[in-house]
């Protein structure tokens, strides 16, 4: 959002309620209007998404038997991506904290990018849960009061609450700030500041609860570790900022929205610390597993070195660790005055690394070996890839449209009819 003191302090003008349909209508216009590159990008994303939708339709009809999952590895690609996406959403808060707690004015100007990322990433996370469950038609059983919501005992019910709550909070903050700017009004702090601070606590909660979902299971030694939640938070604070560093540069390049160097530099400073913290926690986990040994280490052994001749994840996890180490070194040593390209490579590398580490690298070893110590491997098949890539395309559609709307509003290209401030601009 833009700094508030630029805004004229007027509360008269167009009616706030009656102008809302106009806001939606103009937003629809902005969302469907752009240059050739925009149309190519959106058409491509839509096509990829539709391939996923079609694969999902087939999976719904014929069952999850179309995937590579089995009773041995009963969660796979979908839940792995879900976990990573929750981290991405939580990581967006690393813009909100500098902007609102440390009053970093430069960050304040672009913090909406992080909030839109949170919305898109939660949409992705929820989509991954929906394609994973066997009976989508029974989703209403989860609605408190109508279905039977096993709260507070089941951690999954906590996850439902925190994820949908985080989505609503961010939708409110983004929606409110954009709409006020659209009306040419100064946003009322009482209507958004409490929610911004709530979103900070809430961001930590979504990834903590998601970690508890796994770490609370005594029968799965690989997950049953107290360091899992801190690891989740640390990795979220790497993946979120890394994604936003890339997104800010894309916004700067393809729009009139002003993005200075300062917010990017702040995010790189954050990454210097969080990338190391994440690696340290991985190391702490690996040390405890391997030094202790015994049957507890079997899953970690499978992940890092292979077990009984099965080693599907070994090349992935070492590539991921190499990427994370490389990125951490770059964040610490790169001279950003000479250009951001090396930082960008590091961001892409660590996003890949964390996608492996918090995705299949976290989920699959929970099931290999199985609770009866059978070693049955899992490699996602074409249906799972189609659906997963389709969901990420959907997330990028949400993110692109959200950014486009924000840019249009903040550059005053989209404003209410008869708004004096906008006329001036």
């Amino acid at each position, binding site marked *: 959002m833009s700094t508030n003191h630029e805004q004229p302090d007027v509360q008269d003008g167009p009616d706030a309620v009656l102008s809302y349909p106009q806001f939606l209508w103009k937003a629809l216009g902005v969302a*469907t*209007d752009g240059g050739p590159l925009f149309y190519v990008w959106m058409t491509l994303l*839509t096509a990829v998404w*539709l*391939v996923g*939708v*079609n694969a*999902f*339709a*087939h999976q*719904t*009809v*014929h*069952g*999850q*038997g179309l995937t590579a*999952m*089995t*009773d*041995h590895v*009963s*969660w796979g690609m979908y839940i792995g991506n879900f976990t990573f996406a929750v981290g991405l959403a939580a990581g967006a808060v690393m813009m909100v904290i500098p902007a609102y707690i440390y009053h970093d004015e430069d960050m304040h100007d672009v913090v909406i990018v992080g909030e839109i990322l949170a919305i898109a990433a939660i949409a992705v996370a929820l989509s991954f*849960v929906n394609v*994973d*469950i*066997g*009976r989508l*038609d*029974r*989703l209403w*059983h*989860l609605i408190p009061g109508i*279905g*039977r*919501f*096993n709260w507070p*005992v*089941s*951690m*999954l*019910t906590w996850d*439902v609450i925190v994820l949908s709550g985080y989505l609503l909070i961010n939708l409110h903050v983004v929606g409110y700030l954009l709409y006020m700017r659209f009306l040419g009004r100064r946003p009322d702090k009482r209507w958004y500041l409490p929610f911004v601070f709530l979103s900070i606590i809430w961001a930590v909660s979504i990834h903590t609860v998601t970690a508890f*979902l*796994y770490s*609370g*299971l*005594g*029968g*799965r030694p690989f997950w049953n570790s107290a360091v899992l939640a801190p690891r989740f938070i640390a990795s979220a604070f790497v993946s979120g900022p890394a994604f936003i560093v890339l997104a800010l540069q894309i916004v700067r390049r393809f729009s009139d929205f002003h993005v200075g160097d300062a917010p990017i530099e702040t995010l790189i400073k954050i990454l210097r610390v969080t990338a190391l913290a994440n690696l340290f926690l991985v190391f702490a986990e690996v040390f405890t597993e391997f030094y202790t040994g015994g*049957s507890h280490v*079997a899953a970690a052994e499978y992940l890092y070195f292979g077990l009984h001749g099965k080693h599907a994840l070994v090349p992935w996890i070492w590539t991921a660790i190499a990427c994370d180490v490389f990125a951490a070194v770059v964040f610490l040593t790169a001279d950003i005055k000479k250009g951001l390209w090396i930082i960008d490579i590091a961001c892409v590398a660590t996003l890949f690394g964390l996608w492996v580490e918090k995705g299949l690298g976290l989920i699959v070893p*929970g*099931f290999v*070996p*199985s*609770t*009866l*110590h*059978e070693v049955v491997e899992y490699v996602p098949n074409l249906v799972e890839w189609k659906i997963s890539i389709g969901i990420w395309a959907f997330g990028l559609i949400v993110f692109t449209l959200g950014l486009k709307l924000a840019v249009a509003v903040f550059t005053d290209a989209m404003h209410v009819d008869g708004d004096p401030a906008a006329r001036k601009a």
Partner: protein
Amino acid sequence: MDDPSRRTLMKAGGATLGAAAFARAMAPITEWAADLSVDEFLQRHYKELTRDEMDAVLRRIEAKTKEEYGADVHVEDVRPTPGVQFAYALNLSVCIGCRRCAKACHEENNHDRATNNSYIRVLEMSNGSLNLEHGTVTYDHEVPAPGKFYMPVQCHQCDNAPCVKVCPVEATWKESDGIVVVDYDWCIGCRYCEAACPYHARRFNWTKPEIPAEEINPEQAYLSNRIRPQGVMEKCTFCLHRTRKGRLPACLEACPTGARVFGNLADPDSEIRWVLENKRVFVLKEDLGTQPRFFYFFDQ
């Protein structure tokens, strides 16, 4: 660039094309949804159904089984008997690993034929170790093999069941006689229980089960061996459709060595009580605090 009306027209064209593509992509699911009846969709949780509602549900399941599988079946809602506490014990000294119990389970509980599913997995273990790491379920040779012993594993009907705890919609619970059941019509298929179970006791219906009509066991119960829908969890119910009527579990009846002992813990004269009081008994993964109702013991 171009004039607004042309642009609007192109947008409308694009939107129409997009909507058509979406409808096409979703086509399989719309056909599937048309097959789902309103009654099924709105059906309440097992514990909320009145007697009449339950009767209607049972008749609907029977009709559907006839329609989809071509078999005449009888589906009941068999309730627990007050004062009965079921438990199971297995004698590792005499089990020979023939897997007849697993086969009997497969047939009794109307499991999918193609996957050869069963609620029982039999581990072949090496003498001298109870470590599951050294066991295998894929043995394929004459049994009993020298130097080996055999350990069948099925649902332990834990008193402190991790699967029940994690279910987000209370689709699985422990009945008053100790049996952990699943309402197949309420389960959303998230498989959290399958991740939580330390005994690999739960199975997911990855596809719609396929069984030839003549092989379907027609004596069925709502909470146990009726043919499960696609996309839901299932598990061993100690054959409650039999045991709650005074019969023994199918796996016990199939056992050629008499390794299996089943009964009512609340009955002081029962065989199961005698085994628990006089044999060296242990439970699997006792350290997890799951408090199983399934015990193992040795003779020697």
